[in-house]
């Protein structure tokens, strides 16, 4: 579980620290936020393997937050934590695509075991499903064929262009940091790659310029963000 990154959002400031520490003790990396807004901002800036959301929180409740999260990444697993045990709430949570549901008081070990089970299942699903076709705005990109179809025109991409666009698609609506992009394309993050990266991003942007439904933003000092409008 060493590489797993979990986003825990719970407004119980002190008690949730205990949950965080327990999961960390079991080998997970945990980012803890205490309200839905801060949690959602954090989610947009990072990659998480799983989210654990309290249901009743100020500003944004857990259900609304789950909808926002799923609108960005429909595959990320979600576990709801709740003080309610109402059947209707459980149904609502599961309808929203929650992978599991724990009623407080819950056992820390049970939470950890459920996380493990869900992630094992997700990994098994990933193994059988290799995504090589991405929808980018109104365009379609096939990473296996290295083909980008923009408004019925097919563009053949080079290996590096294809790797870059794949990464942008995987981080769709999120920040693709320069380091991750360089590592993913060239296997290292040497500074001299920075200029090349800018050039390739410009090329991809040019390929997609006819598509009004997609935009690649430059985030100064951070990286890039592919926006699907």
């Amino acid at each position, binding site marked *: 579980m060493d590489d797993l990154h979990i986003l825990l959002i719970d*407004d119980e400031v002190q008690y949730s620290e205990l949950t965080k*520490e327990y999961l960390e003790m079991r080998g997970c990396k945990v980012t803890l936020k205490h309200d839905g807004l801060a949690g959602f901002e954090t989610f947009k800036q990072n990659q998480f393997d799983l989210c654990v959301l309290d249901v009743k929180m100020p500003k944004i409740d857990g259900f609304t937050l789950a909808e926002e999260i799923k609108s960005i990444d429909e595959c990320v697993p979600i576990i709801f934590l709740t003080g309610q045990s109402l059947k209707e709430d459980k149904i609502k949570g599961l309808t929203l695509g929650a992978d599991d549901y724990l009623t407080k008081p819950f*056992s820390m070990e049970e939470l950890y075991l459920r996380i493990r089970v869900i992630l094992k299942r997700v990994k098994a699903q990933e193994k059988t499903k290799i995504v090589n076709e991405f929808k980018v705005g109104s365009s379609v990109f096939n990473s296996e064929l290295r083909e980008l179809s923009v408004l019925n025109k097919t563009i053949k991409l080079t290996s590096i262009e294809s790797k870059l666009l794949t990464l942008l698609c995987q981080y769709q609506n999120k920040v693709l940091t320069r380091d991750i992009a360089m590592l993913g394309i060239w296997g290292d993050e040497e500074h001299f790659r920075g200029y090349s990266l800018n050039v390739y991003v410009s090329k991809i942007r040019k390929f997609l310029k006819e598509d009004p439904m997609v935009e690649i933003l430059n985030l100064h000092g951070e990286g890039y963000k592919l926006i699907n409008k």
Partner: protein
Amino acid sequence: MDLLFLKNLMNGDELLVDRFVEIFRKQSRGQVAALKPLLIRQQWEELSNAAHSLKTQFNYLGLETFATQVKNIEENVDNGDYHNLDKMIDIFEDDFRKFYDTEFPC
């Protein structure tokens, strides 16, 4: 308080149990005292959240009577049924004060 129940939830980790109880000792009294001002200011959402938070803590500690009392307060607030709240909070505050003074004497 049913610390055996809490210990089971914490996978037998005594340190976590102690920390949980310490957090409860430090914050619960203030949270209980905050209910009445929230009622007076008619801050319904905050009052519901405060009662909800207390309910969770009481459940962890096996304090079922208190958990039921704050659950009723929370439900009344959520249902817009405000007229008994003043009395309900008074009774709960009084019961809790007695418990707290016995459990955590100065």
